[in-house]
């Protein structure tokens, strides 16, 4: 049976993401696929958002390559528990690299929301925050109260090393908010926001 804090979660995911990104207008944001992608788009489309519609398990590693390439920018990965679980090894890779400017925000509802709300591993015994810490991401913490969004904001701004914020969100099935599915367009728009040629 399920044993997760998310079953008692009070945080509304869209409100949380909107509050987070409103405080970080310049952040470079990589989303996971599915609900986290919709949440970031629903908070307001931005040139500095890169939305995944596939490549499950890749969000944190896209964030790592980006964080190394742009060490003076805030890089924020906003993903879900299922997407991060598929890329669990990337926490180990990121722990080994210690990029100062990378924060991974895991919106953990304990379920695979896109496919019928099956329990995920965070509902079945895996403590993602503890995993991240054990991988060398010392600044890993859990968020159970919506007002603690300020702690995530401060972590991104401080840029003191890689961080993981595991945010327990309600397991709601919200209306989808669909950003562009044209990957080339999203890529070029993102690069242009950094002054890079569209290619």
């Amino acid at each position, binding site marked *: 049976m399920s044993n997760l804090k998310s079953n008692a979660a009070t945080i509304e995911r869209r409100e949380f993401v909107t509050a987070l990104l409103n405080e970080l207008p310049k952040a*470079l944001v*990589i989303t996971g696929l599915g609900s986290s992608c919709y949440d970031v788009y629903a908070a307001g489309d931005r040139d500095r958002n*890169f939305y*995944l*519609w*596939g*490549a*499950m*398990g*890749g*969000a944190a*590693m*896209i*964030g*790592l*390559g*980006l*964080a*190394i*390439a*742009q060490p003076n*920018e805030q890089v924020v990965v906003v993903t879900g528990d299922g997407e991060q679980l598929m*890329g669990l*090894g*990337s926490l*180990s*890779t990121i722990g*080994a*690299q210690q990029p100062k400017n990378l924060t991974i925000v895991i919106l953990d509802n304990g379920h695979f929301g896109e496919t019928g709300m099956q329990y995920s591993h965070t509902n079945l015994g895996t403590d993602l925050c503890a995993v991240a810490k054990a991988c060398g991401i010392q600044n890993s913490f859990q968020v159970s109260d919506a007002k603690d969004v300020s702690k995530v904001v401060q972590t991104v701004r401080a840029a003191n090393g890689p961080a993981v914020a595991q945010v327990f969100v309600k397991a709601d099935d919200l209306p989808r908010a669909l950003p562009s599915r044209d*990957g*080339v367009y*999203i*890529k070029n728009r*993102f*690069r242009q926001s*950094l002054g*890079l040629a569209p*290619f």
Partner: protein
Amino acid sequence: MSADQSTAPVWQEDIFKALKAANIKQVCYVPDAGHAHVIRRVHADPDMRAVVLTTEEEGVAMTSGAWLGGQRAVLLMQSSGVGNCINMMSLLQSCRFPFVTLVTMRGEYAEFNPWQTPMSKATQGSMELMGIKVLRASRPEEVGDIVGAALDAAFEGGEPVAVLLSQSLIGRKKWVSK
């Protein structure tokens, strides 16, 4: 220069030179003996970042993230790792990311370990099915040039490219029972 570097085959140093000439800044890898020299050289270069991965598909995502941020990156792996990358390679086609991977082949030349052979036979075909152009280098003197051509095709032409480094380049692995 360490003793290891002075004894490494010239074609391995040629790969490193090609990466430097193409202004590659990030080199991520799952190690292989055939990549060992380049990996050492990248770790020792203050202008490059070497990143060890837990699985090869991480590198497909990472090189794409590097490009989003304006840096050039390559992925080093052996042929058995190609299968791990397949779905992540959809990122390359969906977003048309430039991509270069250098793949040391196992399972094709005097291979002692039969477990290497199935993925070896599927290496080229599986990457081509995912839309990646596959080049191959089999003679030491052509390695540098072919790797350079792959880097140009990717970072000037926007193509995803793999270079297979034939097992015959690397030579027979010595298997001695302990």
